[in-house]
């Protein structure tokens, strides 16, 4: 007996310790072994079914081993179209490493199936994009092949894009080839990835290059174009560059080249095919980089290196640019809010002052802010430092910078009026540097702030006036409705009721007079808002009063008992609880009508109408209730207040 209970206790002890230990032991094992995950996973825009292995190290999940993320939906394919994708590769300690393939498909099906080798097959048509190559700790290594093909009936119909680049630890090597459906670009790099020699673009059916970009150790020397069987050669950058900087051949580089060509007023088509192909290629690399960055550490970019002229910004210039950016953003917001203000847009049709200021804002917006906005964009896209400042600024205002005196034509006759911001000195922005642009931005800001102060006040006033107009229309409509109601019933309603109704219209009329006597806009609005509510209640009250005769007969009908009379063998209606109905018709209703006819105002209108409503409901309820005691009490008093108290209709009633 004793030994057995000892044994049980020991067992419990072991169990308890074991349970406490188990999570620790699992974690311990996890640190040692790869875990496998199978299930849904979202990478950027791509949500699919994933299978991968990982390690857990100090609570962090580190991808290690094979990785698959894919999605395809047969139902969607059969119904309409399916966007499928499949990413296959491997990770090493969190870095994408080893062979990788990326596939993106947008397919439709013709819905005809065949059985081939014990499998159902289905033809698909659409677009397939695929990228294939090897990664070395997140960087492309070896040949990367990217293609975009049009598929028709499960067969390749047309290659839309193809890019083949050889990498060495993320740096492009030797030669590359990028082509779309009709053009092929071939070029080469130095070992450090710098563009070198001629990059040639061939078009279908031509044996000679139609566009050639000539690089010398990364510096673009010239572009040669075939236009109308004529070879044109353009120099891009100046020959003697003060300084150069190595950057990636990406979107901003193409923009820099375009700007330089603009400076030279290049007659050739601005958008060469080379730039387009390079941009497309960069897009594909960006897309894959986005996926890989979402899950691991990688730098999947083409890293084509080029050298560009460098005009570094000094500290002052940087500050000036920041200041211009800030001022532009504020001014742009102010100008847009003014130009889109509906009240101002209406007001400017009738008010010349508004029209004048509105037009000045338009001019500032177009002649000052639009070019400044371009500059801000160049700054954001990291272009400003790679083009000569003065040229850039000249190019922003091709017809010269605006004058500080802004002239606009207003009115039907087109009278000219000029604007000049107060306190400004004469033109300070003739020079083509950031300092003068800062002055210009300051002037725009000051001008807009000055104008905004005036226009916003006008807009507010206009809005107020419109509010008042709307309010007055509403009030008049309310009064008309009330008068129509009263006029329509006065003929066939008892005198007592008529008096009450007349006083409702008189009271409303008096309030309206009081309203029109007010002169200040604010007072009008405040008082009008009160009247709006008040007139609504007056209308309700008038309706209740007109309902009274009908409701009285409803009550008279309810306070009847049907009795079968054996002598006549007919059913006779008998009035019951006559004390209550009598009090209702002789005391309560006349009391309310008298009150409404003599002591009505905005404050008590609601009370009267709700009292009438409650009275009706109370009368209907009393028909069913046991009322002998109440009837006895009613017999003793005819005082309206006492009666209302007895009927539980006084708000402040305190019956014992």
């Amino acid at each position, binding site marked *: 007996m004793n030994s057995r209970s000892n044994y049980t206790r020991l067992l419990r002890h072991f169990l308890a310790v074991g349970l406490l230990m188990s999570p620790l032991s699992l974690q311990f094992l996890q640190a040692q072994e790869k875990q496998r995950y199978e299930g849904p996973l979202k990478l950027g825009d791509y949500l699919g079914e994933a299978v991968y292995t990982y390690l857990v190290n100090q609570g962090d999940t580190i991808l290690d081993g094979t990785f698959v993320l894919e999605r395809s939906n047969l139902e969607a394919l059969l119904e309409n179209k399916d966007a499928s994708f499949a990413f296959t590769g491997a990770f090493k300690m969190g870095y994408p490493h080893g062979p990788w393939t990326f596939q993106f498909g947008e397919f439709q099906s013709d819905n005809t199936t065949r059985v081939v080798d014990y499998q159902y097959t289905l033809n698909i048509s659409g677009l397939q994009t695929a990228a294939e190559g090897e990664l070395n700790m997140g960087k492309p290594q070896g040949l990367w092949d990217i293609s975009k093909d049009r598929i028709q009936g499960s067969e390749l119909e047309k290659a839309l894009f193809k890019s083949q680049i050889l990498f060495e630890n993320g740096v492009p090597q030797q030669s590359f080839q990028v082509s779309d459906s009709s053009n092929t670009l071939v070029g080469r790099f130095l070992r450090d990835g710098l563009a070198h020699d001629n990059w040639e673009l061939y078009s279908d059916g031509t044996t000679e290059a139609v566009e050639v970009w000539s690089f010398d150790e990364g510096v673009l020397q010239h572009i040669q174009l075939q236009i109308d069987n004529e070879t044109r050669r353009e120099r891009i950058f100046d020959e003697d560059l003060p300084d150069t900087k190595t950057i990636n051949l990406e979107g901003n580089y193409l923009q820099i080249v375009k700007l330089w060509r603009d400076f030279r007023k290049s007659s050739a088509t601005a958008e060469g095919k080379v730039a387009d192909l390079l941009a497309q290629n960069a897009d594909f690399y960006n897309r894959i980089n986005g996926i890989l960055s979402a899950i691991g550490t990688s730098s999947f970019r083409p890293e084509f290196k080029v050298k560009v002229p460098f005009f570094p910004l000094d500290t002052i210039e940087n500050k000036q640019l920041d200041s211009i950016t800030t001022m532009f953003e504020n001014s742009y917001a102010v100008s847009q809010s003014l130009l889109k203000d509906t009240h101002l847009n209406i007001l400017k049709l009738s008010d010349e002052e508004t029209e004048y200021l509105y037009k000045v804002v338009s001019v500032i917006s177009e002649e000052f802010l639009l070019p400044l906005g371009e500059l801000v964009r160049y700054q954001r896209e990291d272009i400003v430092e790679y083009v000569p400042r003065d040229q850039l600024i000249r190019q922003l205002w091709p017809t010269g910078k605006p004058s500080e005196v802004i002239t606009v034509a207003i009115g039907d006759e087109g009278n000219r009026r000029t604007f000049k911001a107060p306190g400004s000195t004469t033109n300070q922005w003739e020079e083509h540097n950031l300092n003068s642009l800062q002055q210009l931005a300051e002037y725009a800001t000051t001008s807009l702030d000055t104008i905004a102060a005036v226009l916003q006040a006008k807009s507010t006033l206009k809005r107020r006036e419109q509010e008042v107009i709307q309010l007055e229309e509403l009030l008049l409509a309310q009064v008309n409705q009330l008068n129509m109601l009263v006029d329509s019933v006065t003929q066939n309603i008892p005198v007592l009721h008529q008096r009450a109704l007349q006083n409702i219209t008189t009271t409303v009329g008096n309030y309206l007079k009081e309203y029109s006597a007010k002169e200040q806009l604010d007072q009008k609005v405040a008082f009008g808002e009160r009247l709006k509510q008040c007139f609504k209640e007056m209308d309700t009250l008038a309706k209740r009063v007109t309902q009274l005769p009908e409701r009285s007969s409803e009550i008279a009908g309810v306070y009847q*008992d*049907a*009795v*079968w*009379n*054996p*002598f*006549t*063998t*007919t*059913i*006779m*209606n*008998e*009035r019951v609880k006559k004390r209550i109905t009598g009090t209702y018709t002789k005391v309560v209703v006349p009391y309310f009508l008298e009150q409404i006819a003599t002591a009505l105002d905005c404050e008590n209108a609601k009370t009267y109408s709700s009292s009438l409503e409650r009275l009706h409901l109370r009368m209907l309820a009393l028909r069913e209730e046991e009322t002998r005691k109440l009837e006895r009490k009613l017999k003793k008093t005819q005082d309206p207040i006492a009666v209302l108290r007895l009927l539980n209709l006084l708000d402040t009633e305190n019956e014992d």
Partner: protein
Amino acid sequence: MKQHNYLSLYFVILFVLLASWGTQAQEGEVLPEESTFKDPKTRIWFNTYGLIRISPRLFWDAQTHFRFEETEATPFIGQIGQIYNRHAIGYIYSKNINFSLGGVLRVNFNTNESSEDQNVVPEWRIWHQYQFAMPMYTAMIYHRIRIEHRWTRGFAEDSDFIFRNRWRYMLRAKVPLNSTKLEPGTMYVSPEAELIMQSGKAVVGSVMEDLRLTTTLGYILNPRLQIAAGLMYSQGQTLQNAGNFNQNWTIRFHVYFSPDIRKVKDKLPAIHFTD
């Protein structure tokens, strides 16, 4: 349907009676050459009618009538003629049809001023009644069949009870005068005609006991109280000789009351009998 059956029955009985009357030989009294009509007697009646609701279907019919008649010196109200106590239990078949069964004790006073006989004798009856009402425009029309089994005796000391049956049919209308229907506050006029036939061994020839033609003006105070007053002319064969006719002019006053002694909750709804 029921109404039709009862009417048929009534006419069959009437036919049989008339047939037997025609074939029977006349005995005793000799019929005059032509009918003689006595001078009209003047009378005044004070009648109370109570219909007391005792259940959804049943009511107690309680009537007390005081009937006066002329003396040599005083017309109409000279002396008491009869005191009537008529009771029955009524059954409400539907809103427009009801039946009653009960008894009557009538106290008959000897109104023959020169008689030496007893002053008061009782008269017993068993009676049953079938009433059918029908609305017509704003008025109501009523058919009433009342059958009485009647035991009467004369005022003479040694007089025996004789047994007779009475067969009564009354057609009556109530026409509201100041309203579109019979309701409280309504004044109505009520013309009525009642034929009272009788049969029995004692009835030899005098089968038409009474033919009453009345017009009444009534007022409904409330569903439980009405008052009415009217004038009636009546005539009928005397029991002694079928060739002689009595005639009467009677002023009638009526009070109708119909209290409901049921509890309030049983009354609602007041007009539904079958719920």
